[in-house]
């Protein structure tokens, strides 16, 4: 029903052929487009945007792009919706902060250390929680998030409930380019993987894990690899965020609202696609910023409404809906459902 409505709306604006051609173009020139986007992202500071509100907003957009795309590697591509991704973020933030302050390491070294810790953490808990599916997996990952947050609150080295203040941090522009760099690198990695058999296996696990196993894939191995990859990028983002923000405590490092926002971003942009989560992150973060300035305190209400509307009306998100629309022509041309009517009566031998 809803897809027909979208079709009606879309149809008046642009034909499915045009959309199809656009997808074709993007598919053929994906690497060029990624490079162009990277250069475009690098330009604002060159033209004088070096500090202030807009600089922060742009940095955060890149940051959320990383968070949403990381969630989607496991939640969208592999079909394991996690509610615990902020645990990786928080651990990345705390390990970096501790290494910078207590061990007096430089930021680049500290973030490498954080990445190692996050990867090991993800590897261990991934092998445990990835045995679960659906709701059980979601709840277990939420448990991981709450547990890590509690640990950070209780330990002395993390500064307990009051957190850590980080002085003497690099200037904002370093983080601007760091978040941009991580985002571009992640887009490139996810796009490349989506073209390989590894990416196909992740999608196969999402669609039918039992069948994938019956075809000879040790799904545990692939799920864990995806989980670790997602954790790595999320942890890198978290590691930089602590210093970018000059302060972390259990509330900011394991931000509950962000934990929901990053999922909403992936859903709205289109799960299981490369561009979708990034588009969703940029779009939703812009909306949230506008609402935060114009209607203080209402951003979560708006977020809730936006999620409900998306999930009901456009379950495939922006990119998914467009892709569906684009493939419509080919599908009917070659008689997609044409054989369906003839298949209605199952042939059960009654005479045996």
């Amino acid at each position, binding site marked *: 029903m809803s897809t027909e409505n979208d079709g009606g709306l879309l149809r008046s604006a642009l034909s499915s052929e045009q959309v199809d051609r656009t997808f074709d173009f993007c598919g053929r020139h994906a690497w060029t487009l990624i490079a162009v986007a990277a250069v475009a992202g690098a330009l604002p500071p060159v033209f004088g945007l070096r500090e202030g509100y807009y600089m922060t907003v742009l940095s955060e957009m890149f940051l959320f792009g990383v968070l949403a795309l990381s969630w989607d590697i496991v939640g969208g591509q592999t079909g394991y919706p996690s509610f615990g991704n902020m645990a990786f973020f928080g651990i990345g933030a705390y390990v970096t902060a501790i290494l910078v302050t207590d061990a007096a390491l430089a930021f680049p070294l500290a973030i490498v250390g954080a990445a190692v810790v996050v990867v090991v953490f993800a590897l261990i808990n991934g092998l445990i929680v990835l045995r679960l599916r659906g709701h059980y997996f979601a709840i277990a990952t939420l448990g991981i998030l709450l547990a890590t947050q509690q640990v950070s609150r209780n330990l002395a080295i993390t500064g307990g409930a009051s957190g850590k203040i980080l002085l003497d941090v690099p200037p904002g522009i370093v983080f601007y380019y760091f978040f941009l760099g991580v985002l571009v690198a992640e887009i490139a990695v996810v796009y490349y993987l989506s073209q*390989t058999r590894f990416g196909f296996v992740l999608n196969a696990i999402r669609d039918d894990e039992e069948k994938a196993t019956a*075809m000879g894939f040790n799904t545990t191995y692939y799920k864990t690899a995806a989980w670790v990859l997602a954790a790595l990028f999320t942890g890198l983002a978290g590691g930089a965020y602590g210093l970018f923000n000059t302060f972390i405590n259990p509330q900011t490092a394991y931000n509950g609202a962000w934990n929901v926002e990053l999922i909403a971003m992936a859903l709205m942009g289109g799960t299981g696609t490369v561009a979708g989560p990034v588009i969703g992150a940029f779009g939703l973060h812009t909306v949230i910023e506008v609402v935060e300035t114009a209607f203080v305190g209402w951003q979560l209400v708006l977020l809730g409404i936006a999620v409900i509307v998306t999930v009901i009306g456009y379950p495939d998100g922006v990119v998914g809906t467009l892709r569906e629309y684009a493939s419509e022509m080919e599908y009917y041309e*070659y008689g997609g459902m044409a*054989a369906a009517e003839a298949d209605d009566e199952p042939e*059960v031998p009654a005479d045996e």
Partner: protein
Amino acid sequence: MSDSTATPRAEAETVLRTDGITKRFGGLTAVDDVSVAVNEGEIVGLIGPNGAGKSTLFNCVTGRLTADEGAVFLQGEDVTRWPEYRIARAGLGRMFQETRVFGGMTVRKNLLLAAQEGGANVSGLLRRPDDSLRARTTELLEYVDLGGLATTQAGRLSFGQQKLLEFAMELMAEPDLLLMDEPAGGINPSMLENLIDYIQTANSEEEATIFLIEHNMEFVMEIADRIYVLAHGERIASGTPAEIQNDQRVLDAYLGRE
């Protein structure tokens, strides 16, 4: 090649052999001491009334379930306790009763995934599928009449088309042994004709070895070289289609006189 006399065969020729497989679920013995053998190039049928243990036997062979007693040999190797994915990797293909394709992926990706080339090693997985593999997918789609639907999501195909796609995936994988669970179930008569044709062609030209469960007697009698009959978990008969059709125990089992 497929004479049913009990002459001992060379091990290399036997693709699948089960040795007294028994599987119990609590107090129920679903499969009771069943031995079967499938030789290279054969099409072997497995029939029996509902609840006879056919699918359970298949599950024991594929490693989805582990047999309580007995052993499964694939190409002469004992695979009884191997995990399912490893048995599949060793050359066992499986088509499910309820037709399973990867609905969210395009038809072509379904096929590319099915190709066993490169196996599960890291370099093979992290490389893009090459052109010859893509050409093969196009060829197979033309063959099963799904040409032009390569970029359509597999989940949007009709049930019959999904069945054909699943079969094409097995042609892509070229397993040493293909297990089919009710391939004729739920598809219309004209498509059934096509499917019989595809299966026989695969068998004669690609030397595919097939072990299939089927309820459609006409279909199984036409296609199988040999047939095993299960009832109440036990193997009650085996032989050529002609022998099975005239076997009194088989008729009794189907009419419920046991």
